[in-house]
């Protein structure tokens, strides 16, 4: 598929889906069930607002969402209490499929959501969005409702407040532009069409989610894109412009950890798919430096990118969803 054609056909703006009444009618016609998953770890400042907004607008006013669930990694603040107060289903990640152990990372919560939630479509929205709006969910779900050939919809955010000329650069954050896009350009050029491949908001059909593995850490988004691309092709992926997203800014040091995790996940994927040759054993240690009294000292972080298998391989899942 020509990349320019893909961008033209599979890139939309949320405002195209403003007619929520029509969207809900179409959803009901297809008898679809839609679940919203909010993965959390210490998000007490923003979680209440997200739940109230989605519940009021997309459950009570326009019944687009059938389920709002918080999958929490063990917050030590009031995240779970607030989420329960405002009526979300709250799950502690460690208590879902406990026989498979507990791993730390957002990917773990996303994977467990596939088991716990019941929707035909799951829409994942990060819980740290300050300017939450219903578009963050309906904008992502709408292409899946209107276009059966689309399986995976990714958010991007692109609405400058002011720009004077006709052409302007557009793209993702620092890790996307410095790491992910160069890697995609080298090994999976079709995937460069995704404006923000690392964004944490996406909606996916269950038949896709249950068949792909989940790295539990930073690499989950990158791996998913590669897997969906390899199994279902570029035409199964779409992206939606959700305008502005206001969230916490991360320190460069934290972005280093993120890049390390993504790179490890990417290299393993590329090796498994035969895109690159056999890799030596990769270190799990990220080495960063700090200075104290004119002395440079090394700080090591262990970043392990473990992976959960496709959910369909888990017997408990097959039983719950009656899969032979």
């Amino acid at each position, binding site marked *: 598929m020509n990349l320019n054609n893909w961008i033209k056909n599979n890139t939309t703006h949320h405002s195209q889906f403003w007619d929520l009444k029509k969207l809900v009618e179409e959803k009901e016609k297809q008898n679809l069930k839609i679940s919203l998953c909010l993965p959390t770890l210490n998000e*007490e*400042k*923003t979680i*209440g*607002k997200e739940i*109230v*907004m989605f*519940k*009021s*607008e997309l*459950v*009570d*006013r326009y019944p687009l969402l059938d389920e709002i669930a918080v999958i929490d990694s063990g917050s030590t603040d*009031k995240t779970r*209490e*607030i989420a329960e*107060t*405002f*009526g979300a289903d709250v799950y502690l990640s460690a208590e879902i499929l406990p026989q498979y152990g507990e791993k730390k990372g957002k990917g773990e919560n996303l994977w467990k959501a596939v088991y716990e939630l019941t929707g035909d479509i799951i829409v994942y929205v990060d819980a740290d969005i*300050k*300017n*939450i*709006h219903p578009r963050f969910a309906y904008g992502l779900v709408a292409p899946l409702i209107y276009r059966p050939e689309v399986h995976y919809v990714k958010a991007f955010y692109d609405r400058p407040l002011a720009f004077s000329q006709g052409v302007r650069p557009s793209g993702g954050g620092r890790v996307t532009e410095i790491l992910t896009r160069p890697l995609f350009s080298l090994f999976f050029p079709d995937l460069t069409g995704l404006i923000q491949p690392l964004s944490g908001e996406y909606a996916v059909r269950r038949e896709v989610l249950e068949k792909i593995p989940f790295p539990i850490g930073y690499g989950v988004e990158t791996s998913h894109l590669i897997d969906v691309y390899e199994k279902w092709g570029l035409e199964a992926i779409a992206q939606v412009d959700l305008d502005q997203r*206001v969230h916490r800014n991360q320190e460069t040091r934290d972005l280093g950890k993120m890049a390390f995790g993504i790179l490890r996940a990417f290299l393993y994927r590329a090796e498994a798919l035969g895109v690159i040759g056999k890799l030596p054993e990769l270190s799990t240690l990220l080495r960063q430096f700090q200075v104290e009294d004119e002395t440079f000292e090394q700080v090591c972080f262990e970043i392990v990118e473990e992976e959960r298998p496709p959910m369909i391989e888990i017997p408990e899942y097959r039983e719950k969803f009656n899969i032979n």
Partner: protein
Amino acid sequence: MKTEFSSFDEILAILPELPDKLFVIQETLIANLIMLSEIPSPTFEEEARIKLLLQRMVECGLVNVSSDEAGNGVGIITGKESDRNILLVAHADTVYNQKTDHNLSVLTDEIVGPGVADNSLGMAVLATLPNILDALGIKLNSNLVLLSSTKGLGRGNLDGLRFFMDNNKLPLEAGICVEGEKLGRLSYTAEGMFRGLISCRIPEVLDWQRAGQNSAIIALNDVINRILEIPLPRRPRTTVVLGAVRGGKSYNVMATHSSLRFEVRSQDSDMVKKIHNRIDEIVADVASMHNAEIDFEVVSSREPGGIDVGHPLVKSCRQIMETLKVQPTIRPSMSEVSELISRGLPSVTLGITEASNLHDLNETIRIKPIYTGLAQLIAVLLAIDGGFCNEPE
């Protein structure tokens, strides 16, 4: 729930159970509050917030949803009788500029963010009122005219509401001004008031021999001292509040500009006029002594007035609050209610919940008391609608 009432006592009887029944609209109310509150709405720039309010009104099926030449937003919940109208007002402007981070945080029992109490919550109550009445199965006899007024604060001088009242053709029976804070607030009188800005300017070129003897700050200080010397009577109660002083640039730079913002209030409009004239004289005198340019400008003003404490509307409000175990806090108002009262419309201001850090960036409202505040508002509406707040013929 009973929705038809043949006496005021019947309304009081349903009150204890009403707050719990209102809990069902929690998400709708808070979602409206978030969406409205996160749109900056400084005085004279309320358009975007009003636009959202009107959208919400249209979605709720209100009729006559429109915005007027002053930018006010209006929608009507129709009643069973077309000739009776009750006005509900919530001002749309806030004291925060466009650059302020308007994001709210929703916690277990509190909501925090700039303007959330004053008056995003008041506006959110207007936006949610159709849902509230639907949820309770209440259909009033009177039309409810929901007005979110612009240009209310500071230099706005209630211009939005004044425009509406000057041009409104609907016969109004009573008015309720809805403010986010604070639950128990009951205002039905207005004091005479003016807010003044005194600006002092000293020419840039100064004789450095006289440095320290003259500056815009010294001149303004003189003005302030002279204002404080004005004798104020205890009756009629009269106050002068020196609100804000600005001036100067740094430690060692002679100040060429300074300003004072202040407010004069009195129960007697003649006293307000007398103080105004006295300040005029002070300003002229100090200007000549300091060779300074001193301007005195009245930014906004109100006439004193009010309805009587024994008015059935006031009595009903007090009884409703007492039944809900809310302690009434009676205070004169300078806000929208003063304008309605001055036009002869029996009106009160009611607060919806408890709040703290008012006008700070971490302005905070408590969620739980909101339901009591809403119950109070519904009961007052039912009382007016039932004709229980009319003065005897």
